[in-house]
């Protein structure tokens, strides 16, 4: 054991004083200092976006109140002007997982590996696992704070009009991926994927390009997969094929509409429509034994459970990649 020089930690040298309220120490300080430009940018843009959404919601509520919200007159939609803003903001929010994956995730370890600073840090008296854990932890914390705030802000703005699918359909990415826990999980998954890609490729630019491809693929697969998170509800009628199809609950997402026979056999809704007179159509429907409609749909009441199911799948994948990063990085990260 070394018993030399009574280790004078020489407290806070004049040059190193920052004087800010919260004083980070150890690896937390290092990780924050190294990536502070990125972290501050995320937090500042989040705050700006929240302010913008708050202002927009104020405008929107002013309009809705003039129509007697929460039970507005039926013609309230005629002059409703927030649709464009909701849609453009939601589209912008949709880019966040890709942007953060490429600009925060990919360089996070690739930068240290490319510049050799991974060697610098891991040869200090800290273990590689702790360094990795701090890096991933602080980054994840910033992402969770930022995306949760954005999700809450957007959900708060959209909330009063969410049952009006002509403004934003809840099953679309614009609504589904930007509210509740989904944006948090999608962003975390994309960023951690980017971190792993950067760790394996060890080059910043290359990892950013590959991560971009990964992030776009995640968005595509996710949008393809989104509706299968729900449990499809079927409603049938027996009032005959000439009657109107059954009314669905507000904002329900119709998946399929078809004729149904007494035995449950389905016919496409175009069946018999070639008939020129109602009589001919009726005869055709009767000839096939059609007794009513069968409509499959996703009610909006499932939105939250679908979001949480999707989130748990994404978080499980994120956890798997995290474990991989630790197993690989523990040995080979220099």
């Amino acid at each position, binding site marked *: 054991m070394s018993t030399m020089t009574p*280790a004078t930690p020489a407290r806070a*040298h004049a040059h190193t004083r920052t004087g800010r309220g919260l004083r980070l120490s150890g*690896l937390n300080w*290092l990780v924050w200092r190294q990536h502070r430009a990125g972290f501050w940018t995320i937090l500042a843009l989040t705050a700006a976006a929240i302010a913008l959404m708050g202002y927009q919601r104020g405008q929107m509520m002013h309009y809705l109140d003039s129509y007697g919200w929460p039970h507005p007159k039926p013609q309230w939609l005629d002059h409703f002007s927030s649709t464009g803003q909701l849609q453009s903001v939601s589209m912008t929010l949709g880019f966040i997982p890709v942007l953060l994956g490429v600009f925060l995730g990919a360089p996070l370890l690739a930068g240290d590996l490319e510049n050799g600073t991974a060697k610098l840090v891991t040869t200090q008296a800290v273990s590689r696992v702790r360094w990795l854990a701090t890096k991933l932890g602080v980054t994840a914390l910033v992402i969770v704070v930022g995306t949760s705030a954005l999700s809450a802000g957007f959900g708060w703005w959209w909330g009063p009009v969410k049952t009006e699918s002509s403004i934003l359909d809840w099953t679309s990415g614009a609504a589904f991926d930007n509210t509740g826990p989904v944006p948090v999980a999608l962003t975390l998954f994309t960023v951690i994927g980017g971190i792993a890609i950067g760790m394996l490729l060890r080059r910043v630019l290359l990892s950013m390009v590959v991560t971009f491809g990964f992030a776009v693929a995640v968005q595509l697969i996710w949008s393809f997969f989104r509706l299968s998170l729900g449990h499809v509800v079927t409603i049938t009628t027996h009032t005959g094929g000439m009657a109107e199809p059954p009314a669905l609950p507000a904002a329900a997402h119709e998946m399929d509409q078809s004729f149904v026979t007494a035995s449950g056999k389905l016919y496409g809704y175009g069946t018999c429509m070639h008939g020129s007179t109602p009589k001919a159509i009726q005869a055709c429907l009767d000839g096939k034994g059609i007794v009513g409609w069968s409509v499959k749909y996703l009610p909006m009441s499932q939105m939250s459970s679908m979001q949480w199911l999707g989130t748990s799948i994404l978080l499980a994948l994120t956890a798997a990649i995290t474990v991989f990063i630790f197993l690989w990085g523990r040995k080979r990260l220099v």
Partner: protein
Amino acid sequence: MINGTGPSGSVNESAIEAFGLGRKYRRGWALQDCSFRLPAGRICGLVGPNGAGKTTLMGITANLLAPTTGVLRVFGSVPESAEAGRRTAFLAQEKPLFRRFTVAETLRLGRELNPGWDQKAAEDIVRAGNVPFDAKVGTLSGGQRSRVAFALAFGKRPDLLLLDEPMSDLDPLVRHELMGTVMAEAAEHGTTVLMSSHMLSELEDVCDYLLVVAGGGLRLAGEVDELLAAHTLITGAHPGEGTPPALAGHTIVESRTSGRQVTALIRPQGPLHGDWHTDTPRLEELLLAYLRSQQAPPLITRSAQVDDRAVAQAVAA
């Protein structure tokens, strides 16, 4: 070379022990079957041509690489242990630093991450080069950056200081001054220093111990004095072809004939017969002879040897 006063304790303590160490990359073995011991308190030069495995050996010691075969211990612990990590400081060849950190922040990095940090020692090294503390590392000259990297390594107050090609981008003045710092630090605190270079002239004046690697294997290891004393440079007339018969029985490291004159570097195994002009080789001559003749048997002095059984055990594991 008195090191009883240092923190590294007894003369018998080993700073580094390697048992059958090997490291294989995709392109082949960078280091193979390397067994040696570096006693604590020494300033040891690690010499060899480029690509000889110096950086690999340093990397294994600094816990940046895992060996493919064998075991290496730093003060008795494996490199990945917290104990070894705390007692070892490593200055990589490219001297990586965070370019956007200021000098003061770079020293803070050392302070935040190392329990035994010596802020004054680190600041003194920076100040000696008139490097401004509030300058960003990215704006410094190569020499200034090296100085900051040195300060970071010294501030850790390591028991084992690993310097990989430390002088390669320094001007002679800075090189001389920083070497002086290394020597003073080592003398004052009993720090063991392992310093690699492919230029022996850089190390000749400061090192009292030597490890020579070439072709992935260890060629020489031990005290500089002993290594020199074990060799004799002989010059004499030899009319015939081949090895002069008088040299039979001695280990010939290298011999060259020009006309009737023979010059040879030998390890005498007894009294030398015949009419020879003998001389003690200079360190550089010794080194060059070993690097040129790869077939010459390696020489590991007693203090640099490790137990054969431990090697066998480590390789088998």
